């Protein structure tokens, strides 16, 4: 993967490394060492700083993970609306625990804090797309969108 090509549109944005990391993760869902090194070169900052940014933000991962990132909100409004049942249902459906990825590399399961869709708690997002009023019954259909 040519990381520099992916990041090139952001090269001239001052401080654009975060946008550039988003662009990479759109392609491969996490940041490899080579991607971080390439970003450091492109934005002319030390690698240690690029790495510091990559590990600061929840949406960036420096570890490999599934292509489709499922995030389950567990902030207070979703918590009292039953986020724990959603977590249990997703773990069961995918056969993995929170923080893990499916062996076929299709899904990653992560905790998230509030995603701002609190009119329809509990909420999950997949690759940023929100799904509201989620319950165990709805999960197979939602996941099927990503089959």
């Amino acid at each position, binding site marked *: 993967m040519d990381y520099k090509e992916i990041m090139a549109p952001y090269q001239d944005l001052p401080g654009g490394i975060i946008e550039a990391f988003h662009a990479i993760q759109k392609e491969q869902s996490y940041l490899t*060492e080579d991607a*971080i*090194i390439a970003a*450091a070169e492109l934005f002319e900052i*030390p*690698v*240690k*700083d690029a*790495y*510091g940014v990559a*590990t*600061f933000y929840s949406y960036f991962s*420096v570890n490999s993970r599934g292509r489709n990132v499922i995030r389950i909100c567990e902030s207070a409004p979703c918590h009292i609306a039953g986020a724990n049942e959603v977590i249990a249902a997703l773990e069961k459906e995918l056969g993995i625990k929170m923080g893990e990825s499916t062996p076929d590399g299709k899904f990653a399961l992560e905790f998230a804090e509030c995603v701002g869709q609190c009119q329809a708690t509990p909420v999950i997002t997949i690759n940023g797309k929100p799904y509201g009023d989620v319950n165990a019954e709805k999960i197979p259909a939602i996941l099927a969108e990503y089959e």
Partner: protein
Amino acid sequence: MANVIIDGIQVSVPDGSTILKAAQVAGVHIPTLCYHPDQAVKANCRICVCEVEGQRLLQAACSQPVWDGMEIKTHSPRVLEARKTILELILAHHPQDCLNCIRNQNCELQDLANEYAIRDNPFEQMVRGLPQDRSTPSIVRDPDKCILCRRCIEACSVFQSVDALGLENRGCQAMVVPSLGKDLLDSPCVMCGQCIHACPVGAIAENEQIDEFLAAVNDPDKIVVTQIAPAVRAAIGEEVGLKTGAMDMNVFVAGLRQVGFDYVLHTNFTADLTILEEGNELLQRLKEGGKLPMFTSCSPGWINFCETYYPDLLDNLSTCKSPQQMFGALVKTYWAEKMGVDPSKIYSVSIMPCTAKKFEASRPEMNDSGYRDVDLVLTTREVGRLFRMAGIDFSRLAPSNFDSWMGAYTGAAVIFGATGGVMEAALRTVYEVVTGKTLEDVNFTFARGMEGIKEAEIDLDGTVVKVAIGHGLANARKLMEQVRAGESPYHFIEIMACPGGCIGGGGQPITKSNAKRAERIQAIYEEDAGLPLRKSHDNPEVKAIYADFLTEPLGDKSHELLHTHYTPKNKKFL
């Protein structure tokens, strides 16, 4: 000016002064932890918080500017509760094995815990359980002890522009790590050890090798020989309760005999020898159109930096080994021959102000004597521990002389320990070699002092040589960028990796401020001024080694034993 009242004491301070500065004027002590006098204000430990009249929030004294009429309480009950609680929080997440810690009794956190009478910590003791990093021969990182003050990061990035250390993760998962979360050895670390001075606790320290030394002393088959680097004497007193510079050289020698060294020799001898070799190398390059500017090569942190960041400029480096490695190569050849001892029995220990020297001694190419040229490197701090362990009372110790053949030195060698010293020493010799005249005033004062980059034009009887001196690798980087761009006006550049030169080296007694470095520099120049011989080429033992062994500077034997080559580090990332 702003008039402020601190704990009832009225003081007038310049506008924009922080509470901390104002308190210093008022003679009021405010505790600090992340604050460092030579670094940017961080305000992240919150130990220095004070109460400001009319404010709900406590304010960090290190960052909060005063205003006219401000009333400050530095130890009200609210303040003391906050400080104690913050200390409890930090301590509860810090392995409290002070007795086993290399910084025991020399630790800012320990001092604060004592100052604030932390007894029954209400927070449950936790340790992160992160592995130690022993990847380099020079530096040991113990992340469990890290209190995240970030002073090491600034020392590494701002003073040194090495950028080896950064942050990883956030919140209570945050940690200071080498680049990409790798080991130090895989990072751009040059092992200068400036991070050690910056660290308030024992999270970064030298790779302590006292036990290896004691084992060698205990081995009847080993002849334990030492060399002492020029910067060590200026600072070793600080380790044994003396003032900076107060340790007499010959009393120091006597002390080393007490801890078990069989022979005590001096790196100053090879410092003088370096001047002969390096001075002639410079003249040869000037005459024969060699690569210019020529860079000095005494400082192993600097060599690592050049190999890492400026591999394209390695040909500019003098091929001279550092005085430590010249010594190592000679002690098992020339000296062994003179003394009639079996070189295989010699255990060569150097006492250095430097952590990078441990790495330098371990370089695979450093075996030109047919053996490991230097077997062990002890830092000034480690020798201080040996002295304390031996219970030596230096006030009652009879002075002792250096042993023969590699123990004589001049003032020119002494000043190798300070920034500008190698340049000044070289000029003392080069001037006389080129002009054939006697140098009346040997003091090249432009070369002295803490200014980051110093430069001069030296007239050698019509031949003008432009020279520059940089100390601290951030200054080196500025000079190197000029060279890389083809815009360097200089013929000769002296670089020392550490701020202040070797007196501020990573192996020296822990120093928090540049003020201490300046004191040590003064001690160096006082020693130089008091010596009868002050030019390297006047050193009688140097004359002897050329007469008996090396024949001439840059001769075959010199090339075999005293010169080296450099290799690009080819780091994957910087």
